[in-house]
């Protein structure tokens, strides 16, 4: 009855920002980003990609409360770069990987269809 509408999980409210960032004052080169209306799909993906970057000293995410659709991503980098740049770079790497995945999948799928014609129904 008083359950929140399900679309609040992914529709931004008026005036809400997708990403907000708080610079960590006690740690150098460290930022905590809060992503609104996002979940493990994005959080874990970014975290894992950031950890592959040798300039990233720390990357972790948490979902502070399961009823609120947001997560926090904390990133600390070496002083050769900064957390924002690291996140942007990680995202770009992932977009690239996903493009490769899509191309490889499409190619394999078309091949499979050629080898086994007729199996492709509907």
């Amino acid at each position, binding site marked *: 009855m008083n359950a929140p509408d*399900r*679309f609040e*999980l*992914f*529709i931004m409210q008026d005036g809400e*920002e*997708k*990403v907000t*960032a708080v*610079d960590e004052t006690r740690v150098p*080169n460290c930022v905590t*980003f809060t*992503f609104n209306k*996002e*979940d*493990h*799909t*994005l959080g*874990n*993906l*970014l*975290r*894992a*990609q950031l950890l*592959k*970057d*040798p300039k990233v000293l720390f990357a972790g995410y948490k979902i502070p409360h399961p009823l609120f659709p947001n997560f926090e991503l904390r990133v600390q980098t070496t*002083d*050769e*770069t*900064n*957390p*924002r*740049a690291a*996140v*942007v*770079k990680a*995202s*770009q*790497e*992932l*977009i690239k*990987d*996903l*493009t*490769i*995945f*899509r191309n*490889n*999948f*499409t190619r*394999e*799928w078309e*091949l*499979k269809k050629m080898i*086994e014609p007729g*199996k*492709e*129904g*509907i």
Partner: protein
Amino acid sequence: MDGFDMMDSGTDGPIVTIRKADAMHADFVLSNVDLAFANSIRRIILAEVPTLAIDLVEVIANSSVLPDELLSHRLGLIPLESSNIDEKMLYTRDCDCDGYCERCSVVLTLVAKCTGDQNVTVYARDLAVAAGAQLGNPVLSDEAGKGSIICKLRKGQELNLKCIAKKGIAKEHAKWQPCAAVSFEYDPHNKLKHVDYWYETDAKTEWPKSANAPWEEPPAENEPFDFSAVPTKFYIDVETVGSLQPDEVLRQGIKYLQEKLATVIAGVNKTAGAGAGGANGGGDVNGMDQDGYGGARSPDMGDANGYRNFNDGYVTPYGGAGGGGAGAQTPFGGYGGGGYSNGWP
């Protein structure tokens, strides 16, 4: 870009081997990726690929044994043909009509009446799509081509319903799921010990082998545990309900994941203040490597220095040294290939 491009998995990105492909299944092995990547793919095709499903039902007549609510719930769960939905339909919330219109909905009508002594069974096939609709036909994948049973009518009972189908995603309601199931497995021999099998005397003999076990080498007898090993090979079977072809489900999932990442790039750049992030980001990665000029810029880059300062001033706290690096950077152009943040599709 510079050297640390190579940090990525070594070779060039995800590798796909398709094991089975038909109208309902895409069974493939995804390798050379990490667990988070594979899991995000799984999550996004389960929850965030849009399809079409009946969302509103106007009950004009219902004298069947099923109450209106139950009937409308059943109708919602019927898969409707929805390929290329992004090109053909808007979300109702993004449409400027009030209520619904032909740009954001498909109207299906169901009229059935039992007049004889024999009970009448109403199937999904009996849903009539409004003329001119580009999609929304009920999926009839059974052999008889009747679709799922909606309800049964006794003599004299009738149904007259107007159903409005809308575009939506499964995060809102599971009826919009394009997939019945996405099976997902890695490490069938449990070499990584991510699973702790329960056993009476010996787990090896008591548990059946995974169907994916032949795809990987079983561990040698008394093989030492490799504590630094990570899963890299994933066995994924996407099983659709018929509203979308499995390859389309996957491609759409990838597209939405990329869009998510693109909004991250835009959002993170925005946090650096007035669009300066791109310049900072780009400048820092590229520019700094060349000039070797330390990362001290980050703390104040946001609020203090607007983007404009940056481009034509840039001198402020750190002297003009960075000119070279920064000169080349437009807010978004800094990155390798430059394409992405610049209006990624």
